[in-house]
């Protein structure tokens, strides 16, 4: 069974066409990158997979479940990090992670274990007990990444997980994503503007542009096929090709 199977997915917002029939699949346990410029359709794809919005047409399966029909079941196996996820101003980071762990796990021990993992992933020291309105953008992002990964979902969808983080913290988050995927067998589906970052942690990628997938496959195979030295070069040449 595939973790994610998307076939000919389209999505229209009124007259605006966000997705024009995209098809890709993600294997269980993989770290898969969806890369593309702003407005390419990455976030729309993620929202559809997470069951937040319905597609206009096409089929989608997440671990064999349909997000539109099995919405509640999907929510228990997916954890989603939106690109611009905000935080509650007057809640502390600790309180936030605690409430999320308690929502996911009714068993007290399981909830405590998840909370411990969350605190470890967030790695912001004693500041975790401060209200989140006092956090820097990077600290808020790390709390959000912790929130997503600590519940050990079968599928974690991370929309720009290192957005707003400095180089050191971005590297740390990439390490955490790798560790969680390996330790818990979590399938990761992420997007990023940073091609080098994607190349660093993903095995497979799909390049999306104007609602269409340009290429999809193993990074090594794609670089070889298009004689590119890195994903950035490959991406630029493909997008320019489309523009021409």
């Amino acid at each position, binding site marked *: 069974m595939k973790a994610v199977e998307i076939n000919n997915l389209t999505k229209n*917002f*009124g007259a605006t066409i966000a997705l024009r029939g995209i098809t890709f699949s993600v294997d269980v346990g993989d770290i898969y990158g969806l890369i593309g410029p702003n407005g390419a359709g990455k976030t729309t794809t993620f*929202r559809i997979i*997470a*069951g*937040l*919005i*319905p597609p206009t047409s096409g089929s989608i399966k997440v671990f064999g479940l349909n997000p539109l029909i099995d919405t*509640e079941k999907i*929510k*228990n196996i*997916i*954890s*989603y*990090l*939106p690109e*611009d*996820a*905000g*935080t*509650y*101003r007057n809640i502390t980071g600790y309180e936030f992670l605690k409430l*999320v762990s308690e*929502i*996911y796990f009714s068993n007290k021990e399981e909830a405590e274990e998840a909370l411990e993992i969350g605190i470890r992933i967030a790695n912001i020291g004693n500041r975790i007990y401060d209200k989140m309105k006092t956090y820097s953008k990077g600290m808020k992002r790390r709390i*959000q990444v912790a*929130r997503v990964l600590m519940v050990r979902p079968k599928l974690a969808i991370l929309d720009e997980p290192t957005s707003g983080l400095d180089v050191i913290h971005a590297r740390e988050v990439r390490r955490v994503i790798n560790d969680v995927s390996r330790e818990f067998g979590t399938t990761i589906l992420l997007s990023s503007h940073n091609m080098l970052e994607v190349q660093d942690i993903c095995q497979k990628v799909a390049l999306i542009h104007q609602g269409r997938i340009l290429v999809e496959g193993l990074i090594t195979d794609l670089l070889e096929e298009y004689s590119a030295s890195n994903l950035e070069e490959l991406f630029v040449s493909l997008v320019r090709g489309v523009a021409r």
Partner: protein
Amino acid sequence: MKLFSRQLIIKEFKDLVRDPRIWIPFILSAVLMPAMGLVVYAPMISAVEKATVEKLYVAVINMDEGDIAGKLIDFQNNISVKSKIVIYQTNISNVYLNDTKKLKEITEYILSKYPSVENIVIFPRDFSKKINNRQKVRIFTITVVREITFIGSTVKTQRIFDAINNFIREYVLNGTGIKPDVIVKPLIEEEANYIVGKKTVLLGSSMTVLTSLSLASFLIPIILMIISVTIMQMTATSMAVENEEKTLETLLTLPLTRTQILLSKLMGSFTVAAIGSFMSIIGFGLYMFIIMQPVFSPRVQIGNQVSFSFQTMISPLDMIYVVASLIATTFFTAAIGIVIGALSSDTRIASTMVGPLSMLVFVPGMMVAFVKLSTFGSFLPLLYILPLTQPIVFIKQAISSSLPPETLLYILASIIVTIIIIVITAKIFSLETLSNLQHRLSRFRRK
């Protein structure tokens, strides 16, 4: 140095004027305020017309040792107009006016004989003697109060006094060539009120007694208004801030249903808002207490002294029901706030919508406060259930009689109405709905 920048003023003006959200409360207020006026005006004018035009049924206890009271009764009986005072003469010959127990017995006896009677007029023994001696004359009336309203019984009682005053003026000045208007007021008006539902006699002018009692049903919508604005503002903002601060998407992916999310938001914010509102009510209560001090001070006596208190008028159980109903209604307004917030793209639009919509909360309550409940006929059970009318109906009913045994069911039904609204909102509340609403709004703004 200039005090202000002209460019900045123009920028501010353009920025605000071009935002359609700014206009929503102004437009809504412009439409709602006259609507509210009509809602209050229509039943008031209808009640006044009814009270002045309809026949008035009066029982008379005539103890006059002379013949003037008899002449007055004959005169009234011979008038043939639509709005005439229909008089039933009783055979009661002795009444102790200061004994409320006796007054109650007499009233109940008269009502058992003449169920349609609305007022009882008692002519004293010295009625003719005083008039003949050109002295002021006492007249005592008992207003039969079947339902507490601002207008109605009071106007009818006044009609009786006017009729007697006019008769005495004309009688005294007959043949003198002097116009009756020169005598200001030959009567000393003394009144009692019999509250049918409570089987209680309250001494005091019907104007004072009924206005005081009506004030309770009038105060409830005002208190509701104060609470509902606070609560709606808080719940709407709390929900809209999830959208504005981009926490909503996270919330919607948690393993919770949308109904669970909305109900949890409702309960959490309602609790905080209820605490805040409690403080507002205390403040409002103190304000009313302070401003009413000069009116009820022992040094100032307006009309006959009123001998009642609300504690004696409403049973403790009914009071608990009224408070429970108020809480259920504020819960409803909190839910409306959640609905507004859930469908608002940011806190600004949510706050903008709350102001005029909280006025809407006021409208049904005001209507019920001014209208006789019997007017609603078979729709009355609906008013008992609807959260916006329930506490006002309850307080009216509790003051004039007592609440029905199924009151608890009505409160439960009101809470169910609230939950149904949340469930329906949960069905339509989604990122898709919000995206579409925002998309339409941005298109409208571009235009």
